[in-house]
């Protein structure tokens, strides 16, 4: 990130500043090469819109979501309490994250353990930034392109947010096309509930292949995602059908950043 310096909460504290928003990067966003591109796109958008933000950097750790869904409540609560201690020490008020699993856990499962923050998904924050006139986007390279949105379970069904990502696609002057299963009826990519970290149980198909077929049926130029894990699963699915030269799999944040030439 040569364009600007992303600061940590510790950096800010050292100079006596309290950023308005904590950008919770998440494990995939920190370590997965593909997801890091999404992370950078989000950071660029926040920077462009002059959002006062910082990350936790080496003080961030897993929210505990995969441990909780796998049934290890001990490990989940240990992670949660450590994270809450760190965030409360920095007096964090608002969190934005690019991962719907982190989003769900921080928003719904942290308050009872003492972590009360306003938590938003990056698509929600970007929508707000546009509405407040802090960010403007035009179609750019996506004007007129067919884009479909794959609903992440933990953003859509899990937390009822279906519109923010779709509004952003429409802001790109793109043609929003829906897969036959979408919104409340959207099909999972196959990664949730800690499935990302294990082989699938015996069956006759991988879930991401089933989902990619839904997307291929409507022949979009772009499959837009809002979750780093969905992104991996859909990218693999598109590669499975050797369609990677025809169909791009991109996070909404990447679409916005690319359209704005950030």
């Amino acid at each position: 990130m040569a364009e600007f310096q992303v600061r940590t909460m510790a950096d800010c504290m050292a100079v006596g500043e309290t950023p308005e928003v904590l950008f919770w990067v998440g494990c995939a966003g920190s370590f997965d090469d593909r997801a890091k591109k999404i992370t950078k796109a989000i950071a660029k958008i926040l920077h462009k819109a002059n959002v006062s933000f910082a990350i936790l950097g080496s003080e961030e750790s897993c929210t505990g979501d995969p441990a909780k869904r796998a049934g290890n409540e001990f490990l989940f609560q240990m992670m949660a309490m450590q994270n809450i201690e760190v965030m409360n020490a920095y007096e964090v008020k608002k969190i934005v994250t690019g991962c719907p699993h982190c989003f769900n856990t921080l928003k719904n499962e942290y308050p009872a353990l003492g972590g009360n923050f306003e938590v938003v998904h990056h698509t929600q924050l970007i929508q707000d930034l546009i509405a407040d006139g802090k960010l403007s986007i035009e179609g750019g390279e996506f004007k007129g392109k067919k884009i479909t949105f794959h609903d992440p379970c933990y953003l859509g069904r899990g937390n009822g947010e279906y519109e923010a990502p779709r509004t952003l696609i429409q802001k790109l002057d793109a043609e929003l096309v829906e897969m036959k299963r979408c919104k409340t009826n959207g099909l999972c990519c196959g990664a949730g509930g800690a499935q990302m970290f294990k082989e699938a149980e015996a069956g006759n198909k991988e879930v991401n292949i089933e989902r990619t077929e839904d997307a291929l049926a409507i022949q979009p130029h772009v499959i837009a995602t809002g979750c780093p894990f969905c992104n991996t699963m859909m990218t693999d699915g598109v590669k499975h059908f050797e369609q990677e030269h025809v169909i791009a799999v991109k996070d909404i944040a990447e679409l916005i950043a690319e359209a704005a030439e950030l």
Partner: protein
Amino acid sequence: MIQQILFIILLGVGGYLALKRFQFVRRNILLGREVKIEGDSSQRWGTMVRVALGQGKMFTRPIAAVFHLFLYAGFVIINIEVLEIILDGVLGQHRLFHGLGGFYNFLIASFEILAFLVVVGCVVFLWRRNVAKLARFHWREMTKWPKTDANIILITEIALMSAFLKMNAAEGILAARGVEHYVNMGTLPISQFVAPFLESYSTAALIAIERFCWWFHIIGIVAFIVYLSYSKHLHILLAFPNTYYSKLRPAGALDNMSNVTNEVKLMMDPSAQVTEDPMAPKKFGAKDVEDLSWVQLMNAYSCTECGRCTSNCPANQTGKLLSPRKIMMDTRDRMEEVGKCIDAGVAYDNKSLLGDYITFEELWACTSCNACTEACPININPLEIIIDLRRYLMMEESQSPESITTMLTNIENNGAPWAFSQADRGNWTQE
């Protein structure tokens, strides 16, 4: 007089059998542990009105929803007719509400239309199950009994409605012939088409037909109420409390186990002040039905095995063993088994829900995507049962797929599910 006595005996015996069974079901549900019921009651009433009373979630599948609405409306409204039958039977009257005059005729006409729609609905449903063989009615868990159960219900409903229509037709003819105490109910919308088949019968035969249909109808209804408690059809009653007590928080939220919270707090700070939660379960997670909450157990008795959860489940659709409907059916079957053992005074701990009914492979196929909870027309939650069983496997038996164990070790040691150093989390800012 003899008819009145027989009728009261019928009600008494039917009522006794139904009451015993309902007590059994209630006791089984209360085997579950207590839970805090969060949220305000007006929100809960709202959910019940929208989802159960208003059938709000049925309409994602409009064909089934419309025919189901026929049965639902028929069932609810024809109860007014049942009230009249019961009063007639007990008091030895005939068509007690006839005094309402034109309004009575309107009511009977409405019941006839509803009865006809119920018959149409049942025929369509029988066709969908047995001729069209819709996939979701023929999944692995839909063995002989669940299939038979559904057919018994549908055929019984057709028989009950047919008796009602035939009874009205006979009544109409008898009234037209001026036979004493049979009443003229005007031109009836459906039974007028049944009447021509009965015209040639003698008055005595018609009286016998009318009486037979009347008795058949009420005996059928009493038997049906008793049968309900043995059947998946219990949903007609339990859908209401089930939606009332359904989750108000976002579907993605899982509860934080209070018995774990205290241990973790003490682990992080031995001098921490912790308060014991009186409702905290003794075990970590669920092994058997008593470890689940009573709401989860009520969920199981409320399930009518429609299979929308299973047909929307990503794991099931891609050929995995998991079926959310089977999770609910297994929970109910195990509850029945435990209940019977308790009544017989025999031990039941030689088996458990986890392992004997629901297997490791099923539990580990779940992606926790909430497709099942979204699809359920009465807000049943198979996902939280799956998570509770996984919790037991993980925390009490240390059983999990090997790669999951590795993932958890990574989280514990370096704060990420992969083996990367926590110190490198911010490296992307320099790349």
